[in-house]
């Protein structure tokens, strides 16, 4: 079950190596079971719970 709508989010959590950088904007490739598929700082796409992302562009 995946929604293919692409939108942008900002990571509001702390900067963590191979995860995300605080304040950086990422593209959500799809929403799968409510989780965001995002290419993180490792350069690969993974699924993340939406809790600490802020939607900046629908």
């Amino acid at each position, binding site marked *: *079950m995946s929604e293919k709508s692409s939108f942008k989010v900002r990571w509001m*959590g*702390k900067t*963590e*190596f*191979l*995860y*995300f950088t605080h304040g950086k904007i990422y593209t959500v490739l799809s929403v*799968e*079971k*409510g*989780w965001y598929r995002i290419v*993180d700082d*490792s*350069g690969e796409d*993974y*699924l*993340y*719970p939406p*809790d*600490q992302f802020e939607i900046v562009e629908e």
Partner: protein
Amino acid sequence: MSIFTLGDLLRHHGVKGQKWGVRRTPEQLGHKPPIKEVLEKSQANSTMGAEFAILRSLGAKAKNYMVLDPVSKQEYPFVEGTKIRNPTVFAGKGSSKALREEVAQGLSKQIGGKPSEWQHCKGIGTLDVDGKNTEAEIHWFQEPSVGKHRFKVKEWLDD
């Protein structure tokens, strides 16, 4: 009746090749290495490891088994007692695919261990997603001296 004479005994000067003060290794003596050593070597060299459990506690001992670092306040809801099944190394030591240099160096700098010892692994685990047990392909990094880190969900395996 003795078959040796005193002269025979006095002519014995030790074992051929033996050096005074130098002990032979367990391998030279034909002894088997301790089982712990065998297991550690086997796990370090294989690309397929044994399944392992996600610890129940979320305390210090368990934090390495969280999908996300607790510092970020994001915690992947592994179902208590779930086991990561079919763990496989797909990049890094013991694999035909190398870890990217900046990843290996970064992990070593941020977490510890040797860059050459880091492995990228995958397996299958069960997460609690909105109260429902959900199978997922999980990825993580590991290094023998510092353990497993940076768990991530790659795919949901349930429809």
